[in-house]
């Protein structure tokens, strides 16, 4: 009913190829975006902004990056946290050492640095395949963790080692209130999501998917395997680097290697897999699900007077069980569930 498309005719190739080809989709997205930009800043309190929206949006960006690499190009990676930390530390060093560069440019440059590191980490993927590749990204993770701790230059010889990064600013406007930080993260996320969506529909994106689906076949078709893989690593790490930078500058306000733990890498991987490999929407649904589920369980069980130490254990079990259940029921993730629902809606009430 809601999704009836009668009367929507595609009269040009451009119309046929647009990102959201159904009017209802465009409407939903527009409403969501408008609400996110104009409504939420007015109605959300500090808790929602600081504890929920900002971190889940920045993590969604990281998940998006990982999804480009793992979901679209099929390269397994546990290096997300490492790329995020490169982004975070690069931003910090650029901002503090070369204050002449405007902050946003520093952040983008940090993303580029993370992207270059991604290419380096991706090099072994030319020879090593499948699960073996995890070793390469894990090696990068542990190496980067060690490097940023051991070489004190990266922390500007700060003896405490846990750094308070200065707040993000554009010219003289300082982003130090939750609302401004939220809007900043949201801006980055919107622009980068649109870019990713279009990139994945382009030749580059389709090459990546060909590599993912069958490398040998893609090779035979003349797709440059190595270049495609490295490009995927670079783009993905760029996204992760920016996410890592936003995570620290707009959310945690604490820069330390511990911030980018392996658990974070696993969490983003969960977001991608549960949300839906190879879908843009999946990164967002997954991020919301994985980030919010534990918090939701924690607050809900707390109401029933369960021993606080056991709440966490119970949520851990439920979390694991739910993830496995989802993977069994819908191996393609939550995004796929939504697609199926949409298909049903489009045909309802005459599903022929």
């Amino acid at each position, binding site marked *: 009913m809601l999704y009836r498309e009668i009367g929507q005719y595609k009269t040009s190739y451009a119309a046929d190829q647009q990102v959201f080809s159904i009017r209802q989709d465009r409407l939903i997205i527009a409403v969501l975006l408008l609400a996110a930009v104009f409504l939420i800043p007015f109605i959300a309190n500090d808790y929602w902004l600081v504890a929920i929206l900002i971190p889940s949006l920045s993590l969604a960006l990281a998940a998006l990056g990982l999804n480009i690499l*793992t979901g679209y190009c099929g390269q*397994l990676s546990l290096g997300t946290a490492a790329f995020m930390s490169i982004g975070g530390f690069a931003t910090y060093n650029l901002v503090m050492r070369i204050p002449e560069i405007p902050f946003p440019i520093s952040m983008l440059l940090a993303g580029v640095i993370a992207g270059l590191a991604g290419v380096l980490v991706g090099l*072994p993927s030319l*020879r*090593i*395949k*499948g*699960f*073996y590749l*995890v*070793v*390469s990204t*894990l*090696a990068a993770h*542990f*190496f980067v*963790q*060690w490097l940023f*701790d*051991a*070489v004190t230059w990266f922390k500007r010889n700060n003896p405490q080692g846990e750094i308070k990064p200065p707040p993000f600013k554009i010219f003289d406007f300082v982003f130090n209130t939750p609302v401004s930080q939220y809007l900043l993260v949201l801006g980055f996320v919107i622009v980068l999501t649109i870019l990713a969506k279009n990139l994945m529909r382009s030749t580059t994106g389709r090459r990546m998917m060909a590599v993912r689906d*069958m*490398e*040998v*076949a893609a090779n*035979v078709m003349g797709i440059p395997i190595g270049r495609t893989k490295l490009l995927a690593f670079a783009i993905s790490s760029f996204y992760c680097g920016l996410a890592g930078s936003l995570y620290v500058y707009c959310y945690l306000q604490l820069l330390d290697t511990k911030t980018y733990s*392996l658990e974070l890498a*696993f969490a983003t*991987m*969960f977001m991608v*897999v*549960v949300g839906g*490999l190879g879908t843009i929407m999946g990164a967002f649904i997954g991020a919301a699900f994985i980030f919010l589920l534990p918090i939701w369980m924690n607050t809900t069980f707390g109401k029933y007077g369960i021993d606080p*130490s*056991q709440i*966490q*254990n*119970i*949520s*851990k*079990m439920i*979390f*694991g*069980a739910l*993830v*496995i259940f989802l*993977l*069994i029921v819908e*191996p393609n993730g939550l995004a796929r569930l939504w697609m199926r629902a949409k298909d049903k809606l489009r045909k309802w009430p005459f599903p022929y």
Partner: protein
Amino acid sequence: MEFFLQVFVSGLLTGLMYSLVAIGFVLIYKASGVFNFAQGSMVLAAALTFVSFHEMGLGFAVSIVLTLVVMVLLGILVERVALRHLVNASLITLFMATVGLASIVEGLAQFVWGGEVHGLDLGIPDDALAIMGSFTVSTFDLFAAGIAAVLVTGLALFFNKTRTGLYLRSIADSPVAALSVGVPMSRMLAVVWATAGIVALVAGMLWGARLGVQFTLSVVALKALPVFVLGGFTSITGAIIGGLLIGAVQNLGEIYIGSIIGWGLQNWIPYAFALLVLLIRPSGLFGEKTVVRV
């Protein structure tokens, strides 16, 4: 030279401890093609269960038997409830499912037994045994190496001399062919998961005696991962050799590279080494070469 030898030998012995966990990985990977990340949590669960039974006042042997039952049941349960339904899922999905499993096992173990730290005394002295001059070997590490040898021999006998072992090898070679000649696939998978539970118990007791029984035990999975990869996923021999190599490289690297570029390298040296080997041999030392067809 004496010092070098000391560092080298203690590294080899430590490496064997990683092999114990990696063998658990190998068993399950061989039979079902899953990298079971939850093996580390199973090690934790086994050690915690054993210690808790023991602290309740049950005897050593009784506690072992009870823990064994628990671990076997846990293994079978995992296979029945979760992994059976994930047959044919993609590599990533399977891997993440076992990470989810790890979360369940950790939660469950702490839910039942609590998060306290326990000591575990196996009654084996842990001090320096002088071999020659200043060259010493830890008595406990020697004992652990002995246990590892017994375990590996036992597994080898099991795989090579029993009917079940034959079935298992056939499944590892070709699941489809095995199924078509009437190998009871589902029962065999249960056997494998139960065996992995037993291996986790052995590893859990030895590691528990080394580190104390606490949450951090599950971290050994991350240390055993490069061993497993280096060995080539499917070979128990590979896991042993891989463990020895990683242990020695880690120790030597810490001493001889660490003194030059800064200490604390042991987290990434094993991975870097495994990566280096993989670049030369992309499927590990003892892994099977995969042939890709369109």
